[in-house]
């Protein structure tokens, strides 16, 4: 992840660099971010946090994050991105029942009586979920006192503009500028 950060205070700049990375790492979003831009101005106060995803936040299917093959009437799944393993298990249990799903190792799951193609198309995380989780992560990264927020979402970019009391037009304008510079549409 490429992180650009500017601040009116040196200590805050360095502190928020590690804080932002830690929060994104904690919620497992670090690998999905291509670029992030954070602007910190505690004097106003005005905080602008913007992230650009590596790919559009489309629905994720099991086929996107696992290899699936069918053998003797059973589907065998090899998970390639372990972050989604709980979602895969949850969805398989819901569809085929716990008795039909066997997790052999951390990465290998067998589903009795399932067809590979059908399993591949199962949606395990919607694009909307992804955007919502990212929004939560941005709010968590921001200082708590700045409760007045406006969010721009467009293309692969999410930008949050936040202040403590009134969100003035010039603040929104500054946020929109960052959003557009990151490649976000309206």
């Amino acid at each position, binding site marked *: 992840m490429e992180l650009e950060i500017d601040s009116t*205070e*040196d*200590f*805050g700049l360095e*502190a*928020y660099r590690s*804080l932002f990375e*830690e*929060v994104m790492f*904690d919620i497992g979003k670090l690998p999905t971010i291509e670029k992030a831009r954070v602007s*910190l101005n*505690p*004097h106003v*106060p005005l905080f602008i946090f913007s992230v650009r995803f590596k790919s559009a936040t489309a629905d994720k299917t099991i086929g996107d994050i696992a290899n699936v093959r069918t053998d003797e009437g059973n589907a065998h799944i090899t998970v390639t991105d372990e972050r989604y393993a709980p979602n895969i298990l949850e969805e398989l249990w819901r569809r085929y029942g716990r008795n039909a799903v066997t997790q052999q190792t951390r990465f290998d799951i067998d589903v009795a009586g399932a067809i590979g193609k059908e399993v591949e198309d199962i949606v395990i995380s919607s694009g909307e979920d992804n955007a919502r989780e990212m929004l939560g992560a941005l709010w*968590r990264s921001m*200082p*708590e*006192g*700045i*409760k007045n927020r406006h969010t721009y979402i467009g293309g692969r970019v999410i930008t949050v503009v936040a202040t*403590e*009391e009134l969100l003035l037009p010039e603040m929104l304008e500054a946020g929109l500028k960052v959003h557009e510079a990151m490649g976000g549409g309206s």
Partner: protein
Amino acid sequence: MFKVMMYDGGVYRSDELYELIEDVGGVVLQKTRSSQMLTVTMSVPEEDAQLVEALCLEIGGEVRQVPLAGTEIAVVGPTLGRHHMPHPICDIAEQLRKYGAITVVMGLARGRGKDTAQINLEERLIIEEYDAAIFSLGNFKTCIEAKADLFKDVRIPVILTSGPMPEGMEEHCEAVIPGVGRKVSRMRSPEERAKLAEIADAVEEVLGHRRKAIEEDPLFVHPGEIKALLEDYEPVDMCLRPAPIVMHLDGLRVKVPYAEHAGVIADMTVYGRRLGDVCRITPSKISDSSILIRIKTVAEIEYEDARGDAA
């Protein structure tokens, strides 16, 4: 001068330890038994400390220094939100407990924000029930300086921890420890552990000044002696709350309801006087379920006696 230390060992021959503490005129501040293991926090006269330490070693235990034993300290964050809790507030509280203090962690109702942060009278009075308060603020100098309003009127020693070093705080708090700030993970690195030790050392120093001030005009009775008295009072003895009696530098907190027990406690006798006459007994501001006992100084008692005689 009394020295506070902790025995950490087994229950074997612990009776001898209690007897020796009593013989030298010391008091047991806190006693925690878990199966066959025992920790005893005690306050003994400095000149007899070596004797007590020798016995602790002889009966197979260890002696640890707990400079903050017998104190109750509040660690205060701007709010209870996830931005301010649990790190680093809980790490600071944990470090203080290692130094022997009883700690509480508090969040203010409206402590967030630079221009909107505020503390109300009730919150301030609750904080003032403790021996000292540590305010843990964030990463921006402007915000920290603006938030001095949160603690400038607090009438107990305040230690401020923050990210950058704020300016103009000398009048509002006893010590400032920069280099902490807002964190989203535990303080585990060697530098961070050293910072926690620095905070605890600062608290120790600040409370050391307070102890010396109390010694200049000593309390009528040591809080430990009132603790011993209260331990024989059945509702306190039967109380299931953790640490039903918490010692302060100038008194105690007793975790039984004020309305039911204040009268009985006030009528207890210490050195031939009613406890209610030598202490200020008030309900805790947190709730009615705790009683605060503030011991009057010898000078206060003498003044009241003189005034009584004159009348």
